[in-house]
């Protein structure tokens, strides 16, 4: 067995550790691994080109950019912000936990591309989460604001990952079934998807708890621990801002 191509992994690890540009690191790792495996240059270039073109699907989110760009120019984020600020009972935790549950359910039905970082998180969820955090402390630091936005993105990821594998026709289930079939173990996709359910529930509970804990910490950090009574004041201020 030829162990030399493993150095490609070393290139990735070192490149990321040295904080070199990830795009450069990844392509360099591919070239190193290919050359060490003894691939001739022309075959390596063909392999790179073919697999790059075959994975165009991963850049499909570019299609959402014209809509999102225009909407942002027309004030979508400002409006999402004002909208959440007006809803008295919509706290940060309730918003994110509801999104988590919804995203999991939709992915379980196979609707994984319905939501996503470009489709829903940047234009809607992130500004809404920021607005909900503003109700707790209107003078959030940029760092804290980044944390709220990152938590929104993380919520989308957790909801997607731990919902989709319960869906029968999803790639993961079919990959597992196909793999076993190759090794003479015949399984029904249903019997595989079923085992995704306990982890899906665990994922919801764990991430929802973390969201609630984060909100508690945020309330604690702003010192008073009485954000609910401040809502009315914050609402008025935001309402005026929006007009």
């Amino acid at each position, binding site marked *: 067995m030829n162990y030399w191509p493993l150095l*490609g992994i070393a290139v990735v690890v070192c490149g990321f550790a040295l904080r070199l540009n990830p795009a450069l690191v990844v392509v360099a790792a591919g070239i190193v691994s290919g050359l060490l495996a003894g691939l001739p240059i022309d075959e390596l270039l063909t392999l790179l080109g073919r697999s790059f073109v075959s994975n165009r699907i991963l*850049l499909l989110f570019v299609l959402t950019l014209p809509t999102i760009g225009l909407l942002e120019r027309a004030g979508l984020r400002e409006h999402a912000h004002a909208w959440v600020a007006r809803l008295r009972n919509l706290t940060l935790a309730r918003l994110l936990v509801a999104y988590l549950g919804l995203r999991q359910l939709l992915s379980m039905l196979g609707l994984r591309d319905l939501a996503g970082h470009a489709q829903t998180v940047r234009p809607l969820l992130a500004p809404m989460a920021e607005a909900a955090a503003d109700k707790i402390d209107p003078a959030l630091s940029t760092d804290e604001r980044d944390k709220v936005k990152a938590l929104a993105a993380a919520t989308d990821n957790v909801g997607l990952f731990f919902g989709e594998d319960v869906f029968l026709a999803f790639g993961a289930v079919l990959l597992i079934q196909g793999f076993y079939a190759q090794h003479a173990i015949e399984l029904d996709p249903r019997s*595989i998807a079923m085992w995704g359910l306990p982890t899906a529930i665990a994922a919801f509970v764990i991430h929802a708890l973390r969201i609630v804990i984060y909100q508690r910490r945020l309330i604690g950090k702003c010192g008073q621990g009485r954000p609910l009574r401040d809502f009315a004041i914050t609402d008025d201020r935001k309402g005026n801002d929006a007009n």
Partner: protein
Amino acid sequence: MRIEYVYWVCGAILATCAALDLRAGRFAVAAFWAILAASFLGGDAILSAATAGNTLPAQLVGLGVIALALIAGSGRLRVQPEIPLDADAARRRESAAALGNRLFVPALVIPFGTLALVLLHPYMHWNGVSLLDPRQATLTALGLACVFAAAVTLTMTRATPAVALGETSRLLNTLSWAALLPMLLATLGAVFAATGVGDAVAHVVTQVIPADSRVASLLAYAFGMVIFTVIMGNAFAAFPVMTAGIGLPLLIVQHHANPAALGALGMLCGYCGTLLTPMAANYNVVPAALLELRNPNGVIRAQWPTAVCLFTANLLLMNFFAFP
């Protein structure tokens, strides 16, 4: 309709952004998006030529990939962020107040339009030609819904298409090389598969674990899935390697694990790894760029505690369900 048409729209958008950067004198940025646009516009032709035995176009794309990496690595992609003007912010607030909840409509047209098209898909065909690409129904639907949403937004905001493309270019330059990373990583995955990296890893792992111990084998399988996913950025790449190397010979054959439960929960261990790695760029790096976080690892920092807790829970579930 084929998914290829959706790629062509993508390619056209990228080409326009390249032209806008060229006009603004950002030559490296323009070259970057132009190379990408070319591989989108010519994608189908390149793949069918390669299948027919003419690999020259694919080799040119290979050179293009190297050029993209070099441009990204040169640091010339950084576009000076425009200083946010107070006038712009005021205009946006005014527009938000005027349009109100109507602003949500196009944003919701994308998901619900996709859903409607997918649900109506079985009924939409003329003379045996289906409206959506049967192999990629959801993504073709997403593409159509995006075009439709853009049209709705243009009508609603009375903006010109030129403004829309200018905004697209602004967003694309915010994303910069992060937009490309998912495609590059998938390419690396293909190279690793072709050069036998996976088999070599599995070979090394099986030589170090004590095969007689059920717990040790289970831990090696679970941690192997996580670590290999972290390296490859993709649980799908890790699953066949780890299951062929450890899961099948040790856990299923030797220790009689339930294959369905072991496979499903093993894959989910890999998913916990996906939450931890910058190699899963489309989930962890692209959103950090999209949300303009100052720390490119911000999303991973927000989700690692979930990943660690969930991995522990998953490990216990695996020990419980796979060995009845």
